[in-house]
């Protein structure tokens, strides 16, 4: 079986951690900063970072439509935190970027950095508890009918799936947790 080329959107944020997680899960990571670099990848991670910065750079370098086209054609995408925000259909009080997943999301919804936290989570399909690091994390306020919730924390959905799209409002990549990356690779 050929090795999967796992793209990581490398405009801003913790893209190196996503690349490492893909490598640990058996794929070959590829940094994506331009539409040309997107062409050869089999799947894509959109990292944590600042969603406003990532959105501006994605627009300036014409990545929005190419990512949407690939996603609609079935390319699996994993988004964490900012990556979840840019995949959302609705960003409350803001502009959506990729408008691919049927969720409404509120940015920085837990408060400021002093309210950032970590907690243990049970995630459907992962056989061990996941230590979830939430950093100025968003909250999902509405979930569409096609979206499946894989984990909740304090009543809020924090891991969700819609067909080829998987999102988390925390950062598995920060602690070397590769189960979600492995899950995404199995969709390729």
């Amino acid at each position, binding site marked *: 079986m050929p090795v999967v080329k796992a793209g990581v959107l490398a405009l801003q944020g913790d893209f190196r951690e996503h690349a490492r997680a893909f490598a640990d899960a058996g794929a070959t990571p590829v940094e994506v900063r331009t539409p040309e670099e997107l062409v050869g990848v089999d799947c894509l991670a959109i990292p944590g*970072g600042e969603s*406003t*910065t990532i959105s*501006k750079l994605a627009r*300036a370098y014409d990545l929005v439509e190419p990512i949407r086209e690939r996603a609609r054609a079935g390319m699996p995408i994993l988004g964490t*935190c*900012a990556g979840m925000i840019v995949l959302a259909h609705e960003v409350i009080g803001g502009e959506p970027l990729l408008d691919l997943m049927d969720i409404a999301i509120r940015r920085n919804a837990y408060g400021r950095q002093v309210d950032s936290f970590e*907690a243990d989570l049970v995630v459907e399909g992962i056989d061990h508890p996941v230590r979830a690091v939430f*950093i100025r994390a968003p909250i999902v306020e509405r979930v569409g009918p096609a979206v499946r919730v894989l984990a909740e924390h304090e009543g809020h959905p924090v891991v969700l799936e819609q067909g080829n799209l998987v999102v988390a409002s925390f950062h598995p990549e920060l*602690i070397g947790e590769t189960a979600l990356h492995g899950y995404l690779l199995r969709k390729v």
Partner: protein
Amino acid sequence: MERETGTFRVKSGLAEMLKGGVIMDVTTAEQAKIAEDAGACAVMALERVPADIRKEGGVARMADATKIEEIQKTVSIPVMAKARIGHFVEAQILQALGVDYVDESEVLTPADQEYHIDKWAFTVPFVCGARNLGEALRRIAEGAAMIRTKGEAGTGNVVEAVRHQRTMLREIAELTTLRPEQHVAQAKELGAPVDLVRQVAELGRLPVVNFAAGGIATPADAALMMQLGVDGVFVGSGIFKSDDPAPRARAIVEATTHFNDPDVLAKVSRGLGEAMHGLDIGEIGEENLLQTRGW
């Protein structure tokens, strides 16, 4: 399922999210808006930019609380603010205001000639400046969750940031060649705790995110520092002391992302107007250097 706040992982985690980005010094809400619109990943609130502190002299302190709150209301990206070295009450106030990161900064007038802030005592994370590996590890030992080069702030001259980053790279590379029995002696040499020395020897890099700061004024400066291995850049006077801040801010953001692509760097470097005038380090005089504040 309990929430745990203020852990080192949560503190250093925010710095991880800022990587590949540009953090811009701002003194007003209007400047903060310009920075956010240009794609800054965070802003640093302060009362005067370093170039003005250098020119006007006087005691440079934490920014006014009202100004910080105005900036927090205006932008959705993280808001950082500077506290004086050793001034733990300024840091307490900044934490109470809900700033996202405190920069214990040599750019402000030091409040303590002997001791830096005990940063473990805070929930808010701290970034600190360093000229070399030993200084970086001392700050991390005090609880800093992010490091930046000191450079020489307010000069528009990147030479000191380059020197500090090259020193850091050389000292880390040396450390990785040592045998385990040499680590304690090296810790003594560096003036840093041996557990952190061992950690760096194993990782081959600092255990926290390391940004460039102090003298970055152009897209080329930002890309230079990125190619020298920093995780992102702070730009102080370089933006709002230039002719036309908004396009320069945008160009520095793009140069930081595409730091390895000379075609993009050439494109974004066009038509930016005059950069800040800048200072040769030799003109400043030893006694006016900011980088020698702290230890």
